[in-house]
């Protein structure tokens, strides 16, 4: 956990005062709706379908127990007693009053939290692997660089009115767990032959209306040049990114239009002027930021705990939970525990204030007071002793946070959708729930194996549907809510963008469609070791299309019609 110094704290306090004054001026009629909109958005406040929505920053997903308790307090005092953890590792409050927001921000500032740049056309919360700092396959701890970049991008005078929002992701491990290819800038730690640390720089990925996997702009950027190189990218984008059409304003369109090669030439030409300048990082700064992170006081433990092994062998339900929701740790005898926010009947990513308080207590008792928010909208206890796992499981079950479904079909990523969001074409939460109910049988769920199912209520893709093995997108058909289904998307090292399988379908047909896709996979997989995504890649879309829409060469009319295709 990064601990603020006096200057970090002062800046956040000054932001609270600034925003309090902006709110006052708006309520006094000194700022128009439109003018205030751009100011409040820079502080994470949207005006939603029924009420404002406040997005609180959780930088790179790291959270201390006292911060989670504060979020619980805020949810209880100023909202309706719950919050929604988002795919950008932030927390969204759905019902705050606009007038109360300055007070909420003041409360957050007392625990080193804020809502700075959680929306607006600026550099947003920087995200990373939720196993950062504890992963056995880590090259460097990306949180140090995330924090350095967080500070640099906070209130950046030149890059606060970009053509569009700007999302940066870091990955510090061998395996990509930060979906770097789907970001405006993706940075992947690499170690050169001589041991030097640097980053592979990818630019221009994204989801939305035009999903693109980011191309590599630079194979190796030595860490010292991180800030100047990002500045060069942002300057090229700020100057030349499109501002005439909101749908073409993201950096991915600029990279695509120029071609990645020409874009790189522009960046490198700009960088010549910035390289080795005052913003070149120093080893002292790297060390200073590292030492401001709290260090867990790990015990020396054997790699494997006999009690834990015994429990695992004798208790099937516990073993299943361990298999899905517990991940290895770089320290012997420790593990990382995912607390699932995907219980059937609860909107994915939602947690009540009472759950937040209880999770904060778990973190204090079992994980050195540390927590993470994952981009799959779950919470994580990063430092649990193996010998405590059985107890943690029991407590998590009592809290409804032990659904053993990580990596499985019911671990659905979903945006809040049309129930809350004014941008949405269609609802997401009831669709997620209907699917979870259909696949409620745990044995069947585990037999299906790893399958990412992601739902977005509109093209803005907050639910990452393009990256789901199965993706569901809400669309508007003459005022009615319909859903377009795609398959073959994937996050991670072999990232890919899902392909639409056919015409969109009505909400009540979705569970059937998913079941047919799953059945087709089960019939066609070459063994239970072949995952859904691998089968799709091997056999292509056709068998799946046929299962849903029938064989176009034989009986084209009837089965398609049955589905009330829109």
């Amino acid at each position: 956990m990064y601990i603020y110094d006096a200057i970090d704290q002062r800046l956040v306090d000054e932001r609270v005062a600034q925003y309090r004054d902006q709110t006052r001026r708006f309520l006094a009629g000194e700022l128009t709706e439109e003018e205030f909109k751009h100011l409040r958005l820079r502080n994470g406040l949207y005006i939603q379908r029924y009420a404002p929505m406040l997005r609180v920053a959780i930088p790179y997903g790291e959270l201390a127990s006292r911060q989670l308790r504060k979020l619980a307090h805020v949810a209880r005092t100023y909202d309706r007693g719950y919050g929604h953890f988002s795919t950008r590792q932030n927390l969204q409050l759905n019902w705050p009053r606009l007038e109360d927001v300055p007070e909420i921000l003041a409360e957050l500032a007392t625990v080193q939290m804020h809502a700075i740049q959680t929306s607006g056309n600026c550099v947003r919360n920087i995200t990373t692997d939720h196993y950062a700092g504890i992963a056995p396959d880590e090259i460097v701890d990306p949180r140090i660089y995330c924090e350095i970049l967080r500070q640099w991008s906070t209130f950046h005078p030149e890059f606060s009115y970009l053509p569009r929002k700007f999302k940066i992701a870091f990955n510090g491990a061998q395996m990509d767990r930060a979906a770097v290819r789907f970001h405006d800038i993706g940075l992947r730690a690499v170690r050169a032959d001589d041991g030097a640390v640097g980053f592979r720089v990818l630019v221009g990925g994204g989801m939305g209306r035009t999903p693109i996997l980011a191309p590599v702009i630079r194979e190796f950027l030595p860490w010292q040049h991180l800030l100047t190189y990002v500045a060069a990218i942002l300057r090229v984008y700020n100057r030349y990114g499109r501002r005439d059409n909101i749908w073409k304003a993201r950096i991915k369109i600029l990279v695509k239009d120029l071609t990645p090669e020409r874009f790189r030439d522009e960046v490198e030409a700009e960088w010549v002027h910035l390289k080795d300048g005052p913003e070149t990082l120093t080893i002292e700064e790297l060390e200073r930021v590292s030492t401001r992170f709290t260090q867990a006081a790990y015990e020396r433990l054997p790699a494997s705990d006999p009690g834990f092994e015994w429990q695992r062998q004798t208790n099937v339900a516990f073993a299943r939970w361990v298999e899905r929701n517990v991940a290895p740790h770089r320290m012997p005898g420790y593990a990382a525990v995912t607390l699932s926010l995907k219980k059937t009947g609860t909107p994915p990513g939602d947690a009540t204030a009472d759950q937040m308080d209880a999770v904060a207590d778990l973190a204090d008792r079992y994980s050195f007071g540390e927590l993470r928010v994952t981009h799959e909208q779950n919470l994580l206890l990063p430092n649990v002793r193996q010998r405590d796992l059985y107890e943690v499981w029991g407590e998590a079950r009592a809290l409804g946070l032990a659904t053993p479904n990580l990596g499985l079909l019911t671990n659905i990523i979903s945006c809040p959708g049309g129930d809350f969001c004014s941008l949405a074409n269609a609802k997401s939460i009831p669709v997620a729930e209907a699917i979870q109910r259909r696949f409620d049988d745990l044995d069947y769920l585990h037999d299906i194996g790893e399958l990412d199912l992601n739902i977005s209520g509109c093209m803005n893709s907050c639910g990452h549907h393009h990256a789901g093995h199965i993706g569901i997108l809400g669309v508007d058909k003459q005022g009615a809510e319909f859903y377009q289904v795609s398959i073959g998307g994937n996050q991670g090292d072999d990232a890919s963008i899902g392909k639409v399988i056919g015409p969109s379908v009505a909400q009540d047909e979705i569970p059937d469609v998913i079941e047919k896709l799953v059945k087709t996979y089960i019939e066609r997989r070459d063994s239970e070791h072949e995952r859904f995504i691998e089968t799709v890649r091997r056999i292509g879309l056709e068998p799946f299309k046929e299962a849903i829409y029938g064989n176009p060469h034989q009986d084209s009319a009837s089965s398609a019609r049955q589905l009330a295709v829109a």
Partner: protein
Amino acid sequence: MATLIKIRQVVQDSWQLLEPTADGALPTILPQGDVIVPLALWQRDREKLLARGGRLGVWLQSSEGPEAIADDLAQFEVIAVSFPKFTDGRGYSTARLLRDRYGYRGEIRAIGDVQRDQLLYLSRCGFDAFSLKEGRDPQAALSAFSDFSEAYQGAVGQPLPLFRRRFANAPDGMEWS
């Protein structure tokens, strides 16, 4: 005479901003006195403008970069950068390039949709004069310059980022502020 915020004070503005006519045409008769002309007029009537008495400035639209005037900077006492909407952030880069790359030392003035809450960032990018959007009280806007007492990044006027100043102040090691 209009008012202007100049170096964090409200002053009277002696400059006249020359705009193209509604159909985009440039004026044929050049005005007297201190005048800020559109880039296109400078490019068309350069010699005539220089031969004229009175001081000269040029203004850039948000799509016009500093490269267009890089060789002529010595001719201008003022470079105005236009913000057609305050959300159009290109002018911030224009000003930084004028100061950092081209070494321009004269006045850089923000014109157009310029409001209180942009002033601090604009000044950190090198703007030192601000012609606020009509109807806005420049006196009340002055407090914007002190919204924040510190900044992480380097910028015009303070090229060293905070992390370098921390160490400059404590050469033996870390300064735990």
